[in-house]
């Protein structure tokens, strides 16, 4: 099994016409710097964030960092 492949992922990069792969991606907010596995285009590096992640975990971490 190819670990880079993000299975059950129906989204493609529209520009590069490539399937997305799970890769470590740097995210940062205020004083926080993290690396998380996120689907991205292997060619242009555009990172995919879905709604559940944005209004769920990401929002939670944002609020947490804002409270520090």
């Amino acid at each position, binding site marked *: 099994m190819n670990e880079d492949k993000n299975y059950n992922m*129906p*989204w*493609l*990069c*529209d*520009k590069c016409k490539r399937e*997305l792969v799970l890769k470590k*991606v*740097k*995210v*940062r*907010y*205020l004083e926080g710097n993290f690396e998380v596995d*996120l689907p*991205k285009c292997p060619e*242009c*590096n*555009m*990172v*995919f*964030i879905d*709604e559940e992640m*944005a*209004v769920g975990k*990401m*929002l939670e*971490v*944002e*609020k*947490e960092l*804002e*409270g*520090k």
Partner: protein
Amino acid sequence: MDLDKLLETSDSCIHDEPPACTSCCPVHMDVIAFVGEMEKGDFDKAYKVMEKRVPFARIIGSICDHPCEKVCVRSDSGGTVKISELEKAAVSYGFSPPKNTIPLSKSKGRVAVIGGGISGMTAAFELDKKGYQVTLYEKSDRLGGRIWDYEGIALKKEVIEEEIAALVKQGIKTELNTLINKKRLEELAGEYDAVYLGTGVWEEELKIHPETFQVGDTSVFAGGKLANNNDSVIFSASSGRRAAASVDRYVKKISLSASREREGSFETPLKYETEGIEPVEAIGKASDIYSEDEAIGEAGRCLKCRCRKCIESCSHLTRFNISPKSYMRQINQNERIILGTHYANKMINSCTMCGLCREECFKGISMKAVIKETRESMVRRGKMPVSDHDFALKDMKFSNSKYFSMVRNQGEKAEYLFYPGCQLPASYPEYIGKIYKYLVSNMSGGAGIYLGCCGAPADWAGRQDLMQENIEIIKKTWEDTGRPVFILACSSCCSVFEKYLPEIAFVSLWEIFARKGLPQNNRISGKRVLSVHDACATRHNKEIHDSIRRIATLSGYEIQELKYSKEKTKCCGYGGLVYFANREQSADFVKHRIEESDNDLLVYCAMCKDLLAEGGKRTFHILDLIFAEDMERAALRKMPTLSERHGNRAQVKIGLLREIWGEEPDMDYEKQRDFKLIIPENVRQQMEDRYILSEDMAEVIDSSRKSGERFFNPQENSCLARLRLDNVTYWVKYEEKDEKILVKSVYSHRMEIVEE
């Protein structure tokens, strides 16, 4: 932020102060806890509460002379709560013998107690408990002194005997039939580490310190009738206990007087609002003592005096169930944290800063002032959560941008400048031109118009930097237009002008309508009743209050005042930017206000109108009474969406420029796009909940179509695009249908994704 001053203010809050009964009681019996247990029918626990503070509770509880009752706040509303009768009931139904405790070693020293009455027994008991070897001298053949006077009246012989036996069993030595005179006292003072004198009478005048009970500077301490000069049972017991504490300090050689401020009876700083207390008559007794049911009923009459005035009237303090006292302590902690989570941030940003607390407070404490200072400090220290106020501050920026802001004069120079603020044009774009025309024809001296935002959002957000910048711009405009009198239509503007621009004279639009008469006859037929929800920002502006009522009367309405009106009005839930920082808190304000009256409401602040109507309440803006064509529609008209508010402001500017000044506006508010957005209702709600504007959404879509940077899902034929605008990344999921774009969802995040 001056945290010492904050804590001083916190200390002045009387929320935690004891009720009058407890502070008056020289042993500080916790009356509220006591009646609380009794009300629940738990007599055992009620007795335990009593026992904690009252020595020999079974005896004193039956014969106490209850000074507490004289100060009971209930006295004028059906009569004082019969605390003494409740104590008797607690003794009867709740007494259980104390558990056997392991005796302490009596190694602290030796003390002689002279006199086996109430004060002597109390002193002996307390000293024994503290670890002293106590010898109790009594002139008669039994302990108890005047307790025996109550035998067969309030006390059974067996009860007195049991209590005395229990005292002796503790290990206190008793010397009965031993009269102590002055000479013998001097000898005892030499033999023992200290002596307590509780003989009721003594052969010479003693110089007894009223707080420490020390006689002169000797090792002798005196209490009871000798010190109190009265027959009070409870004061006698109290003096024995307090003298015992002095003896302990004396033997340990520590200060006799330090930190003893609230010993004995004192006057509580607590105040309790007596207005509106329902009178309830005291419960009578069918026999000598209350039955359990009678006692439960009487306990229920206790008001449990505690100052909760500000909490009860404020949806914010209610939601966080916090008194200003603890609130300020939490702010103090929040301000001092260096590493760690600032847990109070959410609470601090949930205060509407309406100022009602100060109106309610006996001490004049203003949480509005505290919160303002706190938010400013948070901003200065970089600890203000950005997301709480970001949208509102961007909204302010929009209002002061070319899309809305403008200044136009009537002729060369006008004496008045109409400044409608930012929210009125956003909520009621159709009224602005009508008002302006009214002013032009009614104000001799002429009236210009100035569109913009006064800066209230910056003030609420603690952003003094933006606030000052904005004030300077307004000041300069005022200078440039020849120092006109401002005509204000927004209460927040009024309060900002009062505070930050005292040099600019202003008059409220409502005063002008009330004085000059209404522009059109919108007088309704039949008698209609309205209740005024005054704007909190102008709670002290009597001219505005009167003008609003005058306009309503001129329009044919009768006004029924709300409980909280004028200087005591409540906030609608928008103030302090709470609508953005804590939507649930904002909704509480709306809900509580709506519940206050069944009448339709009359408001004069656009945000009050929008929030109350959004909450389902029939609400009129004062301008509806003057200009509305369909009152039914006006009553329930819902607030425009956040995006529409931008559009409405821009349209007001465009409309005025074209219609009145014949100018073509120099702006491209509605950018030409090669697509048309279709936004379904569920997405519209998402946009409101997530503070996403259609203009930003369009920007994301447009950019993705031009650059090709987007994801595609062939299964559902959807595109997903992202664009970072300023400090937020917006995501839009959409489907292309020729020149139409169907938006499927929108969301955003503030985190930055490094695409590399």
